[in-house]
């Protein structure tokens, strides 16, 4: 699994229009869709934040982390520990603390892992995530394999997050802000340097860039943003368990990023939505004779991802960009 050297960084006009329409649809959704579906969409937006945070590493910097869920889960657990049994806790200090905690964990683990490259990076990130997973899985004090309940959603002053609609819009605003921030970062000197490291790390170092510092900063930031997603997830579901930091969660995030198209954050967000939609479709598959298709959704999901990689190696966004370009190609 190697990162691509060429990304679609500048979004084609058609994709921009699509993203604008999607935003309008998301703004309108709670007024047209049922509560059940609004909650499902809110979850997709949370996963979009998670996938975008991973894209900073995977698509932009070329670091494929197979342990990104660790930072997602840690912030969720932070909220669980900080919320007392009988009352809500303020979002205004628990959110920064949870995000900072995930960022700090990513920083400390990053010091060790960003020195490695390629397949070794994949393995070491996975190993650390497994350690975090078992730390929580095996310790009753930390909730053990059953996890922990969060009885109250965090209190956010004027915003009553217990109201599903308010929570929905709070999540939507978070997602849009994260996207805007990461898009800005992509074109900043820091973002250009990260892209340079993906394309040719050797030359970057020969030009005076300390690759360790840049990668560590990216790893820390990605961990913190994954923490934001994890915090929102925990607040929404009112429940955390070790699976949040499990291997499957990390692998799903990678697939979301690949599915949508790497390196521009829009792809990661679109990928998260597409992945969840397809996943829910597969889970609802009917019984086929003796064979329960829905129960074996992972099999179907695997086939789906393989098909996408074969027919749209640059993801859904890459495919869209290609379709648009075709008519003008022969002489161009």
């Amino acid at each position, binding site marked *: 699994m190697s990162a691509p050297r060429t*990304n679609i960084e500048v979004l084609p006009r058609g994709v921009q229009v699509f993203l604008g329409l999607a935003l309008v649809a998301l703004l309108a959704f709670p007024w047209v869709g049922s509560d059940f579906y609004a909650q499902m969409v809110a979850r997709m937006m949370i996963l979009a934040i998670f996938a975008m945070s991973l894209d900073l590493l995977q698509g932009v910097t070329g670091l494929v982390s197979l342990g990104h869920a660790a930072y997602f889960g840690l912030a969720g657990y932070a909220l669980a520990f900080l919320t007392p049994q009988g009352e809500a806790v303020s979002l205004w200090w628990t959110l920064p603390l949870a995000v900072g905690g995930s960022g700090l964990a990513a920083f400390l683990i990053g010091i060790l892992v960003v020195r490695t490259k390629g397949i070794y990076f994949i393995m070491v990130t996975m190993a650390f995530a497994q350690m975090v997973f078992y730390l929580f899985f095996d310790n009753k004090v930390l909730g053990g394999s059953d996890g922990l309940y969060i009885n109250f959603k965090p209190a956010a002053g004027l915003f009553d997050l217990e109201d599903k609609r308010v929570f929905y819009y709070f999540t939507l605003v978070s997602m849009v802000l994260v996207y805007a921030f990461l898009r800005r970062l992509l*074109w*900043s*000197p820091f973002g*250009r340097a990260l892209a340079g490291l993906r394309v*040719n790390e050797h030359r970057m170092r*020969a*030009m005076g*860039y300390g690759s360790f510092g840049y990668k560590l900063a990216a790893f820390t930031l990605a961990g913190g943003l994954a923490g934001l997603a994890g915090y929102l997830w925990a607040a929404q579901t009112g429940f955390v368990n070790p699976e949040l930091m499990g291997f499957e969660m990390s692998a799903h995030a990678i697939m979301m990023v690949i599915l949508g198209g790497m390196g521009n954050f829009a792809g990661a967000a679109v990928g998260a939505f597409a992945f969840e939609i397809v996943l829910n479709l597969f889970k609802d598959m009917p019984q086929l004779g003796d064979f329960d298709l829905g129960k074996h959704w992972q099999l179907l999901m695997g086939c789906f991802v393989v098909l996408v990689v074969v027919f749209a190696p640059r993801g859904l966004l890459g495919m869209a960009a290609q379709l648009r370009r075709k008519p003008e190609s022969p002489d161009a």
Partner: protein
Amino acid sequence: MPEVLLEARNLTKRFGGLAAVNGVSLDLWRGRIHAVIGPNGAGKSTLSNLLAGDLPPTSGDVRLGGSDITSWSPERVSRAGLGRSYQKTNVFLPFTVWENVRLAAQSRAPHAAHWLHRATNFIATNVLAERALELCGLEGRRNAVAGTISHGEQRQLEIAMALATMPQVLLLDEPLAGMGVAEAERMVALLLRIKPDHAILLVEHDMDAVFALSDHLTVMVNGQVIASARPETVRADAGVQAAYLGEELQEYHHG
């Protein structure tokens, strides 16, 4: 006597039993080109790698502008004022020519790690990149993707990127490799233009260029220096002719 910017003393690099570079000493002076020639496998590229911090030497030391840079990381050596171009084109192929040079120039900016402003809005960096681009005659190709320009242009881009990091010392590894006659002439003119401000190490196989450009010539064979003097002196050296230069030099005299 011109100022010595880089000095290497008794550099040795062993890979197992093989001494790829064996006890090599050399100086680079500001305003002079020091050419290193030798057959393939003589250790010229390994020498460049030792000087630039890409490889740590087994023994010996390297001083750059008075500091001991032996075993420094490549990024630290670069920030200390050493720029280099590569034998095999080593640029950012998916990026535009401009972005390649701009990224090189950005490495000198104090805000190279800035997060929120557009990278293309930093004037000092743009000026530096622009100057390097013009010096190397690439201003007409700025928007071309580096992977799509000609081989000769990629060689020019190599130099432009090295120059954009404002080096005092330049290590140029076969800048003329694979170039046509016209392109090679342009490159020689470029090297003459940048020579006054830099101390240059030139590893090159093109003997016309070597004798046209160099002020000092070192000949390496099997990792060792067998001659190091003014080019005319080396050309007349019977030992050098026997060991390596013979054929190529005869061609040079008669051809």
